[in-house]
């Protein structure tokens, strides 16, 4: 992936919003990749958690928001438990989701779930999913 970085590509406002919502200091990440190595959903991610952190540090909002990473994160907290820099990555993922969701854009449409799944899936699955992925 060829990425252009210059003064015009850095979205400082995005960095500030993610830091404010998550309460995390993005520059703490030293790019060791423990998060990516620990992530149960990484194979489905267009950008690994480590790369999301790197692109975020550089304020490259379009790359971060254009990837499915934060939407397939299951908030399992394995990365948070293992991060040697104590970055609470699930909070960063949530902040990136919220920047989108707060524009009233849903990621899942409850109407489109299969009826058999709605019949059988436990309430915690539905409440959890809609809480994380809808506005």
């Amino acid at each position, binding site marked *: 992936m060829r990425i252009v970085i210059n003064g015009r590509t850095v979205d400082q406002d995005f960095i500030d919003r993610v830091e*404010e*919502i*998550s*309460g995390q200091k993005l520059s703490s990440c030293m790019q060791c990749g423990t998060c990516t190595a620990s992530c*149960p*959903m990484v*194979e*489905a991610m267009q950008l690994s958690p480590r790369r999301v952190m790197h692109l975020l540090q550089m304020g490259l909002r379009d790359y971060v928001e254009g990837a499915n990473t934060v*939407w*397939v994160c*299951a*908030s*399992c*907290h*394995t990365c*948070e*438990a293992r991060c040697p820099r104590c970055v*609470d990555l*699930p*909070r960063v*993922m*949530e*902040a990136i989701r*919220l920047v989108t969701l707060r524009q009233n854009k849903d*990621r*899942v449409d409850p109407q489109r*779930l299969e009826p058999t*799944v709605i019949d*059988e*899936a*436990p*309430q*915690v*699955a*539905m*409440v*959890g*999913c809609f*809480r*994380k*992925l809808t506005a």
Partner: protein
Amino acid sequence: MKVSYYPGCTLKTKARNLEDSAIAALRVLGHDLDELPRWNCCGAVTSLAQDDLLHMLAPVRDLIRAKQQGSDKLVTICSMCYNTLARANLLMKNDVEKRNTINAFMEEEPDYAGEVEVVHLLNFLRDYVGWDKLAAAVKKPLSGLRVAPYYGCTLVRPAEVAIEPAVDASVFERFLTALGAEVVANPAAFDCCGSYQILSSPKEALDAAARVIGTARDRGADLMALSCPLCDYNLGKRQGDLIASHGLQGELPTVYFTQLLALALGLGPDVCHFELNHKGTRSLLEGRNLIPVQAA
């Protein structure tokens, strides 16, 4: 002895097998789970945003109900409810500014400052029953049953609400040992089952579930014990979807820890509702003479 109890939404419907077996078993052990009056959904997942206190109101309201009952602890069984309630409780205990905002917002409720301790049933058994007493109460030891414990995510992460630190957690293993079961060391005990992504990214969630099942099965487990209705859905009820597609060698039935507890204490399938489990669970337990064979 009565103890305040928060059931949560799923235990009243699709996971009655988790709740009924727990209530009946605890009664045998001399503890009455006293359901909170007027409880509401805990929210299932915790809000991770610094500026989102609104989603903390639901779990905090439940904690206030426990305080109003005069309780110093609130027992939960569902792993996700445990996590959500425990984290809301920590926030109210430790973050003075947010606590004041929440208390001011819910002016119709008494103020709350984290006075109630949220206790998962496994820890309740450890601390208020004890493994020796539990072992002594066992009428039908689960001898020869090779059980892999599965903690999942929400019992052990984040560390500040872990029922025991994940690096050396043993509460589940000790519980199974007290019931006479053979514990199978499970390297996937703390791995994620795919969680709520089963609805939005089902393929990826089933991949995660398959790894958990495959790992426990490869270690020779007959059965995997768990405490979360969402884990049971992904790992148990959806197992049929992933055996063929993920090259698993065969089934691994799942069971709630409370069902094993009830069985070991001499209670029957009437409180265990095995019809709500993975379809292999009942036949496995029948084959081991732990429950009577159901008439065809």
